[in-house]
């Protein structure tokens, strides 16, 4: 059994800065958990606390049924892959992988078997005699993974392992990490700021913000039902459109369901749920009049940026690099898109609408 459980974990730095403000979650045996959030949200700190590289101010971290708060990193039975790989520059690839096993006094033949097996799995067998500086970024990444898997630990910890790779390699390694984890069936915790990595890798997704958990759940569930506007805009690219509504607008939009009585709130709608249409939405649906102010074609799909034209007012065009509050993004499949400056109507069915409290902290469901 190698489940990881965090109970009300807190971290306060000596200067009084509270980095982690009470986190609870559990990762079951063999699960792949991804911690995702913007930089500075505490996700790396939290991972380092699990590894034992940072002290735990309050709360408990439990690995495989044993509270590890006061246990040295070496004795926690974890392996970690670092963002900069942290390979030992003066050791060959072979020795990099064997180091941890030698430190534990494993007999030589077994070390050799394990290292060669790991090298085979990671396809770095030909590189065993090289020094890290003679390797490419992708190869270093593999060695770092190899160093983790030879140990056969209870838990793998990944600290943004792909962020130093170029975009293509990152996707390839992402798939490999996932396959490897499935194959070894080792409980894993993975930190990233890339929502796409998070979505594709996770069995459970933990979205963090400001030292707290915003939402925990299956990635698709998080995508379908974001618990706050933060999650709504962080998970999914391009982000969910958020439109502030007053009480009257909410009453009109959600007439006939329980949400109609909300004082004020934020309406959310994913770009792919908006449809360019000539007719207003069916009853209960959302209809928006937009003036197209930018088009982005990426081949398989096109993103249409429109400003809401209310009451016939001319839309204010976006300043460079910034989405004004009235800006709406529509995802259109294929390459057909309206021209810039054109007036369009977009609609979405009622079941695709999200409603959040006015402060954005809470999702309001039916």
């Amino acid at each position: 059994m190698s489940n990881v459980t965090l109970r009300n974990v807190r971290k306060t730095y000596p200067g009084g800065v509270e980095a982690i403000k009470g986190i609870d979650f559990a990762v079951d045996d063999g699960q792949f958990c991804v911690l995702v959030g913007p930089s500075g949200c505490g996700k790396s700190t939290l991972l380092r606390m699990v590894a034992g590289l940072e002290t735990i101010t309050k709360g408990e971290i439990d690995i495989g049924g044993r509270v590890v708060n006061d246990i040295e990193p070496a004795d926690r039975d974890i392996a970690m892959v670092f963002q900069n790989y942290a390979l030992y520059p003066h050791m060959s690839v072979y020795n990099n992988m064997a180091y941890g096993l030698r430190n534990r006094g494993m007999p030589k033949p077994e070390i050799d078997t394990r290292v060669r097996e790991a090298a085979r799995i990671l396809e770095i067998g030909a590189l065993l005699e090289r020094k890290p500086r003679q390797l490419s970024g992708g190869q270093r990444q593999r060695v770092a993974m190899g160093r983790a898997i030879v140990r056969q630990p209870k838990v793998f910890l990944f600290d943004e392992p792909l962020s130093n790779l170029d975009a293509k390699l990152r996707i390839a390694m992402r798939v490999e990490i996932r396959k490897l984890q499935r194959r070894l069936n080792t409980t894993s915790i993975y930190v990233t700021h890339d929502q796409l990595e998070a979505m594709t890798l996770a069995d459970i997704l933990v979205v963090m913000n400001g030292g707290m958990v915003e939402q925990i759940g299956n990635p698709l569930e998080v995508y379908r039902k974001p618990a706050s506007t933060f999650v709504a805009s962080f998970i999914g690219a391009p982000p969910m459109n958020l439109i502030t509504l007053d009480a009257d607008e909410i009453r009109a939009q959600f007439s006939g369901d329980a949400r109609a009585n909300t004082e004020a709130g934020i309406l959310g709608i994913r770009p792919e749920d908006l449809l360019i249409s000539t007719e207003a939405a069916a009853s209960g649906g959302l209809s928006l009049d937009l003036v197209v102010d930018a088009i982005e074609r990426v081949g398989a799909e096109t993103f249409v940026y429109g400003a809401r034209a209310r009451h016939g007012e001319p839309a204010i065009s976006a300043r460079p690099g910034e989405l004004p509050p009235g800006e709406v993004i529509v995802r259109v499949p294929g390459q057909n898109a309206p021209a810039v400056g054109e007036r369009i109507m977009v609609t979405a069915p009622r079941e695709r609408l999200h409603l959040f409290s006015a402060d954005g902290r809470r999702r309001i469901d039916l």
Partner: protein
Amino acid sequence: MQKQSVFHSPLLPFLLIAPQVGIVLVFFYWPALQAVWQSFLLQDAFGLSTTFVAFENYAELLQQPEYFNAIVRTFAFSALIAGSSLSFALLLAVMADKPLRGVGLYRTLLIWPYAVAPAVAGVLWMFMLHPSLGVLARGLRNMGLDWNPLLNGNHAVILVVLAAAWKQISYNFLFFLAGLQSIPKSVLEAAAIDGAGPMRRFWTVTFPLLTPTIFFLIVVNIVYAFFDTFGIIDAMTGGGPAKSTETLVYKVYLDGLLGGNLGSSAAQSVLLMVIVIGLTAIQFRYVERKVTY
């Protein structure tokens, strides 16, 4: 990749390096060549006549057992000074590398001794360990040790090594600290997760990664021990007692300036230069291979 600058005037690059070249020519090549020339000459005791004797000075020198003793003594000195100041500086640097309160203050304090002139350092230690005046000497005597560097050659050696090493610790410390700080923290964290305790981590990760620094410092320290200890020896022991602290450099000074034997003194300084050039070459050729860059 090589950076190339384009100069419009062909004269400018030469003008720019002229001051440096000038200094090296005037203060190194000129005196060095003069020493070489002088070493082929023999002067009478009153400096009235000079004869060209070719390699006679060298031949005479190499027949003196005294000269060989000085060579052995100098190597022993430099090994003791380099060894003790390097190891102690490394220890201090490892301590100072830890995130502790007031670390900036004592890092600064550790660097100060480097600003002390060699002769002053010598006098300082002499006062502390002088057999009749020294504070520390009294303590040693109370412990039953008959401490007397003025009479006991071994004590004098210890005294000189102590002062010379102490002065060099700051310099070594500075480089070691910089070397330690350039080791990525995550590499040491990875080693900690890989089950290496603090000592093992130091010897299998930190130390090998410091080898470029160590190599550089060994060269610098040996050159320091060969030449820059002159001031310390002169202020503390004057080469005595009974030549026990007479190193090659000090012998050059004694024979030439005090003994008036300019030819032999010049020959010694030429040999000294050859020894140091040879040592440095050997270090770069052989030690560098084992260094992990």
